[in-house]
């Protein structure tokens, strides 16, 4: 007995039906979480916060589990995620932090210029970055690497990362700090299989640490050794945690994700200087808005001898190195 042919649902209809079912399932689970939370709160007053789910409440655990990628979240979902991050920091480190998602400043693209004539290899920028960005003290993650080169060479492969003499600068050596170049054509973004990293409108390449799956393809793609992987759970003394954090910036990160320099998103989007610029004792670092024709960095690009690292790769870094002129060649 032949059944009357039912119209085949189109791909659009199928997608929407699937999406609907996913949403229904999510709503159901969130409802379960809330009911469970209410029941738990009614049963025991103190046991809820440290019951299970890694010390999180069931609602927080499920909220984290179903958290979407940052760019796809609605403002309400982002607010909930920020509140979850603050609660998690309070639970794990015992520190009250504030996590924000300050949006990019309009008509602003950040750029960096570094005077290699002035860099003396003190590594103060590394130290300041470590503290500002809540990097694990024992892990190998340091966003800035200061390379020690022999004078007259630019052979990065033979550079020394681990120099530790009594006093720097060592005669005959040059120092070249390397960090994320915030490429305008970032190969790491293309390599990421889950779109956990992207370029923001102000030029900063950011990572959603909750969306990163830790595959480390981006580390392989980056020609500047700028990305670092958290092999261990970052250990930070509670007294040294920087409580002013940004979702895409220096919020406490979990183990097993990739992180990198983000031009101190939590500072620069509020008009402040990055921590490395503030820490530099020689004034070698200049930070500014590339779209402002009167900015300092634009003057340097127009009037100084500048170069970018591995420019031939076409990654278009927004990080320039320049050097001082000899006084006799100044116009």
């Amino acid at each position, binding site marked *: 007995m032949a059944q009357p042919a039912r119209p085949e649902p189109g791909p659009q209809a199928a997608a929407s039906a699937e999406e609907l079912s996913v949403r229904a399932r999510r709503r159901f689970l969130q409802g379960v979480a809330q009911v469970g939370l209410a029941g738990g709160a009614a049963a025991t007053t103190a046991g809820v916060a440290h019951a299970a789910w890694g010390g999180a409440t069931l609602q927080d655990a499920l909220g984290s589990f179903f958290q979407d990628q940052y760019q796809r979240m609605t403002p309400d979902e982002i607010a909930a995620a920020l509140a979850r991050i603050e609660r998690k920091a309070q639970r794990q480190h015992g520190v009250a932090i504030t996590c924000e998602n300050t949006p990019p400043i309009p008509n602003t693209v950040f750029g960096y210029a570094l005077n290699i004539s002035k860099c003396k290899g003190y590594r103060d920028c590394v130290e300041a970055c470590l503290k500002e960005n809540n990097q694990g003290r024992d892990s190998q993650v340091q966003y800035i690497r200061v390379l020690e080169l022999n004078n007259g060479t630019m052979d990065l492969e*033979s550079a020394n990362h681990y120099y530790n003499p009594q*006093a720097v*600068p060592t005669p005959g050596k040059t120092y070249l700090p390397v960090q994320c170049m915030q490429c305008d054509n970032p190969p790491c973004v293309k390599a990421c299989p889950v779109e956990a990293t992207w370029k923001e409108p102000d030029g900063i390449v950011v990572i959603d640490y909750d969306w990163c799956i830790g595959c480390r393809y981006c580390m392989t793609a980056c020609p500047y050794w700028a990305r670092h992987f958290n092999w261990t759970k970052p250990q930070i003394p509670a007294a040294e945690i920087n409580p002013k954090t940004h979702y895409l910036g220096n919020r406490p990160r979990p183990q097993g994700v990739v992180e990198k320099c983000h031009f101190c998103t939590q500072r*620069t989007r509020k*008009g402040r200087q990055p921590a490395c610029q503030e820490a530099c004792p020689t*004034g070698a670092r*200049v930070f500014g808005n590339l779209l402002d024709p009167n900015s300092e960095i634009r003057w340097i690009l127009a*009037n100084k001898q500048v170069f970018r690292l591995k420019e031939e790769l076409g990654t278009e870094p927004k990080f320039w190195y320049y050097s001082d002129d000899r006084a006799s060649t100044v116009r």
Partner: protein
Amino acid sequence: MTRIRSCCTAVLAGWLLAWAAAAAAQAPSSAPASPPAPAASAALTHRPLRANQPPAVLPPTTPAPIADPPGAPAYTVVPRQHQLTLYPCSQCHKVLPLNTTPRQLVAAPHPAALKHGQGRMWCLDCHLGTDRDVLHGISGNRIGFNESSQLCAQCHSARQRDWVFGAHGKRVAGWSGERQLYACTHCHDPHNPALAPRAPSKPPPVRAGLTPMQPVPHDLPPLWKLMQPGAVHGPTSTP
């Protein structure tokens, strides 16, 4: 004996009375002469050696003959004068005779060796002999300690150009908003401008089980030379 004792008592009483009267007379006059400075700033800027309060009004200066390069963006310089330990200089120099003969200084608190200029300069090339609380330019114009960058610019014009446009020196308090720059003397000691080498911060940690990468000698011969028979394999010298 009684007469002697009464005489002594009278003398002592008279002296005490005179001292009390003098103290009472001095008290109102001395109070406004040295007003108590705020404790925080006094602790920051001055050693508690003596009452050398900085003057409330800065000494008069004349505009510099060296102007900023054309097209320079607006800026303000972070004040420096309140950090000078021995300011005001006239505190001592008002009682010292002016000696304009160039000579070697050995007495503290001034630097005995003037490295700046490598022997070509001496104190009164920059400090004004007749008013020690200000500096002076080549044309004799008075330059305050807060505007000392104008004095440096007389010789170091290339550096001044870089500084004004932002390629030298350091901007304080944010990349946007009011442009505040550190003065030359915030970083450079004007009597010994070169920065001394010092120890770096600690090197990056190496993951457990690994050893730091040894620096590769950049003058290593090419591989085809190393692989020739009789050649020594591997790096020629290990540090």
